[in-house]
């Protein structure tokens, strides 16, 4: 409970900061709408030459695009700002101010800041998913929605864990920003069904950098086409990666001796 209250406080603080920069908020919101438009126009061009991509029709692929936009917004809102600050704090030695607080250091370090204007992407993404369902004339059953809720939570856990592992690497490496950049570039594949890609690339996008679990598989669950194996794999992947990231963080903090000492 205490952590929920703290998280609400963090959100409020970030929101108040952003209210100071309203012109920035407006400009960023426009950019978000623009990029969502780019993704949709792109899909339109691709699908004007083919009925299906990777076995998905245009309307079905819209669900993936919606989730891609939503999760991209989630990364920009909650993960990127904190991870950037963690890397900065490790370099400058100011991480000590986080570690000495009487709460879980990973919680504090990874959720303290949020970039509210990127929530526009989350809203747009959710809107696209709903729009896709309307175009398909499809209303998900309660069981389907429950499955989707699980898949979405696991997707969130997976991206969170990946970003935290990257941030934690900054305890030992200097150029960690490049790895975040690498993730963002690979994430671009998430706007297409993972079945678009062949062979080793598909394997890598499923198990090594599991983009499939972030957009394609949750989209399958919206459409009620999820098999039990994938659901279990997602839960295992989410819980497993989160455990790894938490243990890794704890190990890093334990062997950390500030910047100046």
């Amino acid at each position: 409970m205490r952590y929920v209250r703290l998280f609400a406080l963090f959100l409020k603080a970030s929101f108040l900061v952003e209210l100071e920069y309203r012109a920035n908020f407006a400009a960023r919101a426009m950019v978000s709408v623009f990029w969502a438009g780019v993704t949709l126009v792109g899909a339109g061009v691709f699908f004007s030459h083919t009925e299906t991509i990777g076995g998905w029709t245009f309307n079905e692929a819209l669900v993936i695009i919606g989730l891609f936009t939503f999760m991209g917004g989630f990364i920009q809102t909650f993960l990127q700002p904190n991870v950037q600050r963690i890397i900065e704090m490790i370099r400058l030695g100011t991480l000590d101010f986080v570690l000495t607080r009487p709460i879980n250091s990973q919680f504090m370090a990874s959720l303290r800041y949020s970039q509210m204007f990127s929530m526009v992407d989350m809203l747009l993404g959710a809107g696209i998913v709903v729009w896709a369902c309307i175009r398909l004339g499809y209303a998900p059953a309660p069981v389907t929605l429950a499955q989707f809720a699980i898949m979405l939570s696991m997707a969130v856990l997976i991206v969170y864990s990946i970003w935290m592992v990257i941030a934690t690497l900054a305890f030992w490496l200097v150029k960690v920003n490049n790895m975040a950049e690498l993730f963002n570039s690979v994430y671009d594949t998430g706007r297409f069904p993972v079945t678009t890609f062949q062979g080793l690339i598909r394997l890598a996008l499923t198990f090594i950098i599991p983009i499939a679990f972030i957009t394609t598989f949750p989209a399958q669950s919206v459409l009620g086409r999820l098999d039990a194996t994938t659901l279990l794999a997602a839960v295992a992947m989410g819980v497993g990666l989160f455990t790894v990231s938490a243990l890794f963080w704890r190990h890093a903090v334990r062997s950390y001796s500030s910047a100046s000492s």
Partner: protein
Amino acid sequence: MARKYLALMRLSWGLSLEYRAEGFIWLMTNLFNVIMLLVWLSISQAGPVNGFSSADFVAYYMIGLIVRQLTAAWSSWELSFAISEGRLSPQLLRPIHPIHQEITVNWSEKVLRMILLLPIVVAVLILTPGVSLHVTPASLLAFAISVAGAWAIYFLADYCVGILAFWTTQATAFSNVLYGLKIVLGGILAPIQMFPPAIQSLLEWLPFKYMLAFSSEIALGQATGERLLFGLAAQWAWVLALWLLMRGLWRLGIRSYGAVGA
């Protein structure tokens, strides 16, 4: 002017060598082209798409990689920060326009990028069966002129966006949109031939296709004869227009510029 450029070049080359590890980040921007190529390859499995076979897509995107890296520009970021933080003032005192410094920084980065990128592209082009490029002395010359024009268009457009920082604090949002337009309408998302005919003929008159796709079309032998001449004329007309726009904006901007702390 040549001697001034030589001095600036030496300075910029030193800077790029110092930050060569940052080169990894731009390498990642190439991944977007590769992803688009993979998607088009999955679509063209069933047969050619609007005249593009799988090998054509490979050739188009590989040449596109080179053109994209040769024509990349990012000076609007530097310029808008310099303006909003007041760092522009010392640069204004120099006997040479600040744009020239940015140009040499841009060029020396490119030398480094080509050393890394060219071997990969050449290897892929040789190893992919069925790739055919249109190589004659005339087409090579046209390709070089078009790449120079593409660079000038994007660099000037981007610099104009940077100049907007004299009036707004949100110039980087505009540069983001300009970049997005290049991705969609410039031929990175899809070759221009994949768009509906009406949009294709509209794009003939807009600057975006001349930022990238036009050069790839020359290399693939899709723009020859009259089409080639029209393209080059349109491209360099845009270069001239953007250059005049840049000069005009700059003059207005300097007039309204009151440096922070001055």
